């Protein structure tokens, strides 16, 4: 294993995935908002709502294109860069990806063409149905990719086959209804809804501050306020916590997020602040709120939240057990009918992945002595300070979003949103925040899963393709150059579209620069 190759492969995946996910949340949320806006147009039959729908549709289009373009890379990257991963779990992992393509991508991509080109050729209702199909396809695609990702976090419904040296599906229902996948789906699409709401809110606020396109801006803001409030409540309340008690790695993630080096007496306190010290394995300057973590994580007052040291001890046992499974596999490779070895394998197969962790330090895991096993057990701890701080920033932004949209909802309900300038300024400044939270969320999920590519099954350092550093640098530089150029172009085009405004032939029916009559202020 050339660890340089592993690190470069991870770097490339991180860059391309984080970049891809700059565009996806906006697509997820804006597609739903377009449905809402267009439905209002079809129901009320007021032309202003057609203008509104078409304008946000243009922003959607510019963004959608880069989501699709960068998604191409993601679809093939498992094969190009994670060849052993693809072999090892393709029997399970490939299925949701293929279903995503058949069920979601075709729907989304076929109808998106009609959505852009079909305004003159379809009836109003027909076009609305097309827009609904785009939103449905987009959200279904999130469902299936998160079924795939959820399986990496909690690989249920699959078993190792010694004849084919890979994991094979045993219960597809378990893969589909994986609770971690479901929690992730709700959390991720809600985050997308918040992201799109912040964009619509922020751009509308910008126009209101400038006194331009106010007829479009104040209506757009109303939609964003309601949709964003629902989304931000969902993203926090129905957040990711539901899966944190399920697997050893999920427990480890929670412990790392809390920098809980040891199991505390139940119910555990929630660490608000502290300085995790990796070398000493303790957290300094801790500020804790008693009971809260135990309540959230275990939904009880008497269950413990396991600490990292205790989880490491458990990993040590599983490595020892896994080495037996590994040894049995080596015998079964030569003679698949060996009954005794088959029995040893069956007894220890759930720990096989843990033995593979040793390959980082020794070529043959069977040669590892107890000291090496004890040291290797600490490999299951992810980067604690990164987890600790990423979570806190993400969660802070989440709560801020609830406050932002709560305020927006109150202001729009009172019809005060066009005049409250401090809020409009805040809404503009808030535009980048959901992206920060979303990217940190992915870092938590994926860095928190380390050292595993598939939790408990396949370590990341074994999952990569047999490539060289040279070709990896070539593609990393290549993707960075292409993506960087496209990012600059995209931002410019979106800014130009915002400047040009919602009216296609530069005729603003309400160019009034003065204050908008605010109907309900005195009510």
């Amino acid at each position, binding site marked *: 294993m050339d660890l340089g190759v592993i690190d470069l492969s991870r770097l490339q995946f991180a860059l391309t995935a984080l970049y891809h996910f700059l565009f996806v949340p906006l697509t997820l949320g804006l597609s739903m908002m377009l449905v809402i806006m267009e439905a209002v147009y079809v129901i009320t039959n007021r032309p202003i709502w057609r203008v509104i729908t078409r304008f946000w549709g243009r922003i959607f289009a510019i963004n959608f294109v880069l989501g699709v373009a960068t998604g191409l890379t993601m679809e093939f990257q498992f094969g190009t860069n994670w060849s052993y991963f693809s072999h090892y779990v393709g029997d399970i992992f490939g299925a949701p990806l293929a279903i995503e393509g058949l069920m979601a991508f075709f729907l989304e991509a076929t109808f998106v063409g009609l959505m852009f080109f079909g305004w003159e050729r379809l009836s109003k209702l027909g076009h609305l149905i097309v827009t609904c199909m785009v939103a449905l396809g987009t959200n279904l695609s999130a469902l299936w990719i998160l079924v795939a990702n959820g399986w990496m976090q909690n690989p249920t419904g699959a078993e190792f086959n010694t004849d084919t040296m890979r994991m094979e*599906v045993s219960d597809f229902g378990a893969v589909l209804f994986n609770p971690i996948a479901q929690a992730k789906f709700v959390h991720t699409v809600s985050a997308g809804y918040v992201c799109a709401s912040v964009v619509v809110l922020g751009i509308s606020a910008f126009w209101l501050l400038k006194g331009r396109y106010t007829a479009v801006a104040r209506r757009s803001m109303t939609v964003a306020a309601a949709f964003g409030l629902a989304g931000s409540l969902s993203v926090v309340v129905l957040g990711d916590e539901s899966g944190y008690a399920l697997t050893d790695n999920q427990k480890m993630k929670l412990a790392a997020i809390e920098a809980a080096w040891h199991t505390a007496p139940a119910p555990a306190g929630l660490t608000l602040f502290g300085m995790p010290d990796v070398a000493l394995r303790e957290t300094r300057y801790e500020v804790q709120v008693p009971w809260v973590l135990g309540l959230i994580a275990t939904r009880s007052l008497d269950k413990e939240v396991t600490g990292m040291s205790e989880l490491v001890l458990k990993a040590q046992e599983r490595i020892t057990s896994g080495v037996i499974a590994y040894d049995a596999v080596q015998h079964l490779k030569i003679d698949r009918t060996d009954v005794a070895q088959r029995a040893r394998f069956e007894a220890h197969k759930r720990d096989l992945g843990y033995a593979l962790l040793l390959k980082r330090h020794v070529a043959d895991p069977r040669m590892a002595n107890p000291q090496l096993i004890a040291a290797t057990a600490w490999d299951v701890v992810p980067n604690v300070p990164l987890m600790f701080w990423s979570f806190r920033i993400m969660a802070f932004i989440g709560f801020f979003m609830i406050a932002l949209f709560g305020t927006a909802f109150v202001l729009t309900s009172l019809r005060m949103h066009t005049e409250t300038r401090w809020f409009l300024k805040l809404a503009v400044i808030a535009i980048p925040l959901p992206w920060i939270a979303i990217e940190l969320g992915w870092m938590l999920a994926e860095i928190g899963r380390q050292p595993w590519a598939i939790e408990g099954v396949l370590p990341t350092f074994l999952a990569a393709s047999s490539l060289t550093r040279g070709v990896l640098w070539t593609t990393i530089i290549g993707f960075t150059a292409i993506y960087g150029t496209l990012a600059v172009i995209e931002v410019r085009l979106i800014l130009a579209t915002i400047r040009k405004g919602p009216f296609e032939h530069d005729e603003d029916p309400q160019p009034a620069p003065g204050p908008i009559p605010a109907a309900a202020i005195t009510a």
Partner: protein
Amino acid sequence: MFDYETLRLIWWVLLGTLLIGFALTDGFDLGVAALLPFVGRTDAERRMVINAIGPTWEGNQVWFIVGGAAIFAAWPFVYAISFSGFYLAMFLVLAALILRPVGFKYRSKRCDAAWRSRWDWALFVGGFVPALVFGVAVGNVLSGAPFRLDSDLRAFFDGSFLGLFTPFTLLCGLLSVAMLVLHGSAWLAIKVEHGPVHDRARKFGTIAGLASLALFAAGWAFVAYGDIGYRIVGAIDPSGPSNPLRTTSELARGGWLANYGLYPWMMIAPVLGFGGAALALFGIRRGSESAAFAGSSASAVGIIATVGLSMFPFILPSSIDSHSSLTVWNASSSAKTLGIMLFVTVVLLPIVLAYTAWAYKVMFGRVTTQEVATNPDFY
């Protein structure tokens, strides 16, 4: 429901179906993009060409994505080994394909002539490069790829990027370009108004049709007389576990023609490849656009099917290791996964085809320069 052997055979046919679906739909988008700077001289003409595929290319491209994902789900060995083995070639394809959606969407957002010209060439790259590299890749599949598997079934490669380009693989690349340009010009002839662009599309279509015939014949000669072809040695267990180490294969000159002796009906495929291109040429010359498009479609189906049938049961032979070649019988997913994915495909694919047909129907009719100038929704 089906036994493992039948499931593998069905998924081999479905793999071919998805590749053919890609060639028939996105194939003309690639061909049109490769023709863009040549059939359109003025900005209005080029916009007409782009909008001839504008509303539907996005859905067509999904055939490519679904093809990749279906290989992952049904043929994980093929997915893992081909994409990492052809790593830089794959990067080239992805980079070119990334330019395409962006080019379509962003090109007409600014009036600047230099901006538009840059995107036109980007679109050309987005059409020409994938068409070429796909063909080169198929050529390498036919010649065998330099990989071997260890006892953990981890793949290692001995090849280099430049090693992918041999006279035979370049010939396959050019055939792929000719085939898709023919298909693209047949589509343009249906989709754009009569006038200079239409005339040029027919002219390029004629050249591409003739080139297709010549290159396909040359490829056939290479396969018949060159050092290309493999065969399996020893017993085959079509229901055995998916483990390539259990199969032995060896280089066999002319091995890719052996199937036509065993199963003469397979000759339908090459006949369709030649006959389709001839029909397309006939249609272009007589001004029968439906004949031209039917011919170019038939030709693509025939050429792709020829590759698949010639190699059966091989999918990806190894040129350096006799115990690593991937075949229909040793490289698939488990019977359970193949069964589940078959069910999903049987349910979903007809729905996909139905709404795709509806989308084409909604956008039916020729694109005109007039419409391009007035419709604000056009690219």
